[in-house]
């Protein structure tokens, strides 16, 4: 296989084109002052050249379809092919977002039922599908908390409490909503430090953002107690749905006492990650936040489905997208949920947890150190390579890079930030035991290399299309667009 591929501009020749893709020339009149003077510098290539180039580029990637991808907190499970093919039926693709509702009853019925299924599986009272990614769902959630307090005239509540283990998006979102962030520590066992929480609560508390199971890979056991304390202080609870896969069909955030939740449909409901998007971050709310949901939401009048907008929800936090969000992604999630059905939801949590605990037990047996040894793994767990870093000078990043040589995508490294030299490992429910065993064998060989030939790890990867890249040069000598003769 070729290891590198030229930039498409290098294949370009003036006058070449994919001819069958061009409509006939048309004569148009544009005022001289508004005309483009030079054609844009886009590549001029044949159709085969483009097809071959992008196919080859695809072959330089790791992906779920080609590699085990135990990337903690990202839920890289199988994306069923049928979810894609049914979301791409020509009628769905051709539908304009502003076409009359009468021409979209089939599509709207799927969205309405999806809202209902998400409510049922999370224990929330209403759902809006419009946020286009997890971070936008978070934004919607905190914006609703803000709107709720304001609607009650409780204007001093401007603090969001975030555990230090949280995803970076949590504090970034709170800031985007004009809130101040108060971080609180986690205890030795990985649970939230309740004393620190109590000290942080007060008349300025707008709410708390929690992930459960937490980013430390353990279930927050005192969640009901935490919910009671936050509610008693007048705050609301926000559930970051990053780890919903671990409890799907077993426990519901609504029953834990959460007021608002965002779901990452690209994790739990298996819509594609697409090399970094599209995501989809539907939000669910308790009764008291229903009036503030972002619009549009699908409603039903008699037998007809229709969009509910600002006229139906005058207190809405507003619109987050140009239309209704990532409709095509939502269709994929809908198909996935219908295939899973009631029983399948529960199996997601059960088998993702089984796979994680099996991996943890075996990695521990071969000498890896769990970060929270006294705890059950949820659907993911953390190992720490502190000892190897100290004694052999090899880091978590070296282990991660060496795994690539074995054909396994690296686990999440250096997150959560509070566990030194950590790997966060999430196998997901769709991996077979043989795949896990292969990964364990690779991890065993890495341990051996760390003690005998640490250079193998420090220089890894060796077999990927490129070896470690010079990030410092990338940031100091920015080369962000192709130039005819790039700076050397």
């Amino acid at each position, binding site marked *: 296989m070729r290891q590198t*591929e030229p930039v498409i501009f290098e294949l370009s020749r003036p006058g070449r084109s994919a001819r069958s893709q061009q409509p006939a020339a048309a004569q148009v009149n544009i005022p001289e002052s508004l005309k483009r003077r030079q054609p*844009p510098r886009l590549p001029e290539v044949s159709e085969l050249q483009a097809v071959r180039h992008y196919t080859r580029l695809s072959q330089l990637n790791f992906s779920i379809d080609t590699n085990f991808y135990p990337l903690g907190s990202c839920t890289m499970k199988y994306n069923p092919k049928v979810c894609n093919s049914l979301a791409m039926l020509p009628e769905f693709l051709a539908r304009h977002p502003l076409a009359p509702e009468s021409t979209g009853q089939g599509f709207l019925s799927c969205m309405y039922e999806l809202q209902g299924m998400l409510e049922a599986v999370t224990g929330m009272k209403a759902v809006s599908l419009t946020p286009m990614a997890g*971070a936008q769902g978070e934004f919607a959630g905190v914006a609703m908390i803000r709107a709720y307090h304001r609607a009650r005239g409780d204007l001093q509540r401007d603090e969001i409490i975030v555990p230090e283990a949280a995803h970076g998006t949590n504090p970034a979102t709170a800031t985007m909503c004009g809130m101040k962030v108060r971080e609180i520590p986690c205890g030795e066992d990985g649970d939230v430090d309740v004393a620190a929480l109590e000290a942080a609560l007060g008349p300025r508390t707008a709410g708390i953002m929690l992930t459960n199971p937490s980013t430390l890979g353990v279930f927050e056991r005192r969640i009901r107690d935490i919910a009671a304390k936050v509610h008693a202080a007048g705050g609301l609870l926000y559930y970051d749905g990053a780890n919903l896969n671990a409890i799907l069909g077993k426990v519901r955030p609504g029953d834990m006492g959460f007021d608002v939740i965002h779901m990452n449909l690209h994790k739990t409901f298996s819509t594609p990650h697409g090399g970094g998007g599209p995501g989809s971050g539907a939000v669910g709310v308790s009764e008291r936040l229903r009036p503030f949901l972002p619009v549009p939401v699908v409603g039903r009048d008699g037998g007809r489905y229709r969009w509910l907008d600002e006229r139906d929800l005058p207190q809405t936090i507003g619109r987050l997208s140009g239309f209704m969000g990532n409709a095509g992604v939502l269709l994929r999630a809908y198909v996935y949920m219908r295939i899973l059905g009631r029983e399948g939801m529960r199996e997601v949590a059960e088998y993702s947890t089984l796979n994680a605990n099996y991996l943890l037990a075996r990695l521990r047996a071969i000498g890896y150190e769990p970060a929270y040894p006294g705890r059950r793994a949820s659907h993911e767990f953390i190992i720490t390579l502190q000892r190897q870093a100290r004694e052999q000078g090899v880091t978590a990043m070296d282990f991660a890079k060496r795994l690539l040589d074995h054909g396994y995508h690296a686990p999440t490294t250096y997150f959560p930030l509070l566990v030194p030299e950590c790997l966060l490992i999430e196998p997901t429910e769709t991996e077979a035991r043989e795949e896990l065993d292969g990964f364990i064998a690779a991890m065993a060989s890495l341990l051996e290399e760390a003690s005998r030939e640490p250079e193998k790890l420090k220089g890894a990867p060796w077999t990927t299309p490129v*070896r470690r890249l010079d990030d410092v040069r*990338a940031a100091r000598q920015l080369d962000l667009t192709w130039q005819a003769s790039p700076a050397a």
Partner: protein
Amino acid sequence: MSYIPHTEEDVRLMLETIGADSIEALFDEIPPELKIKELSGIPPALGEMEVARMMHERAARDGRPLNFIGAGAYEHHIPAPVWAITTRGEIYSAYTPYQAEASQGTLQVIYEYQSMMAALTGMEVSNASLYDGASGLAEACLMAVRAHRRSSSSRILIPRTVNPTYRSCVEAIAGTQGLQFVDLPYVRESGRIDLTALDALAGDDVTALVLQQPNFFGQLEDVDALVNWAHERGALVIAVVNPTSLALLKPPGEWGSRGVDIACGEGQPLGVPLSSGGPYFGFLTTRSQHVRQMPGRIVGRTVDLEGRPGFTLTLQAREQHIRRGKATSNICTNQGLLMTAATIYMSLLGPTGLERVAAACMERTGQLVEALTRVPGVRPAFTGARFHEAVLQMDRPVGPVLEGLAARGIVGGLDLSRSHPELGHALLTCATETRTAEDIEHYAASLAEVLRSVQAA
């Protein structure tokens, strides 16, 4: 029916290794009173065959009406290779390229995309895309406030000729951070920004002016004069542009004497299907001097240990996973899949192809306006140059007319009575290169029929 590979034997062996009696035992840290007894509200599982049949039926219910709406999303021909390649598992099922060595394909596509978007908009740098055009404008406004340190007002001028949904979206996303938004009126005859209204703003501290070209009505603004006005007053300019139009129209990097500061817009016209509103992608390009204020992912070219060229995410210290509460935005994802489709689309069309698409759209819209205004009771709302959309005025409410057309399999346009009531019974309509002369005649004939029956009713 879940996608679980485990045999009974696997489960037995795995539980033995863990030292647990049952799968249920693995949930023993969860307080028992929290566990669900029975999950209601989720229908029973379906096989692939059953679900396929159901979805085909629902799709068939919606059919494929003949589309004449634009208003921010446009029906274009999408070359067959675009989605054949984009849905390859190696692209579709890959994660964000944090492990650069395992993601060179995705990273190089982003680099090529950044290069193409910078070229198309006439700007110097591009990010790896945002969620969509509307939310992208919100990010652009926040970016302008960060980039313009001397302006203390955080005041953004948003003309009434900007897509009203974009305006709503900007208020929802950027309004929580203290930005103020000020209207600019338009001239009733031309559907373009009223330049005389600018005088009233003399002396006010303005952070940025937003300019949409072609504007929401499809009309072409006098962008040179507007950009110069803003720059003379020390304000930044944010352009909202249609990427197809840029093959013909002057790119925002060349507007006025020194070009705009930020260009953004909806990327959907570049190879992304209409699909009820998403997933699409937003693009955002800017000047080199503002690169660190840009939200979202950015890819750079560098070298590996052996000196071979390669690609990596760069300038990550601006982002949420490092800066947390001080990040430029909470955004994590780009719209990788859609950006990939757009990159392939632009490669297949090339400069000539895209120019032909743009010209064909303009020509068809001209023919559409001509055909529809021949119908009694319909006339153009504005004079002056436009791109591929037009506002038409009718002598009766537009809503029922659109319903009548829908019953005849035609999606005729967008009723503007809610967003722009001052225009009376106004319809925003569009024809792209996908509409033939026959389609246009069919629309005109159907409209005449509907108007007769609506009048009769």
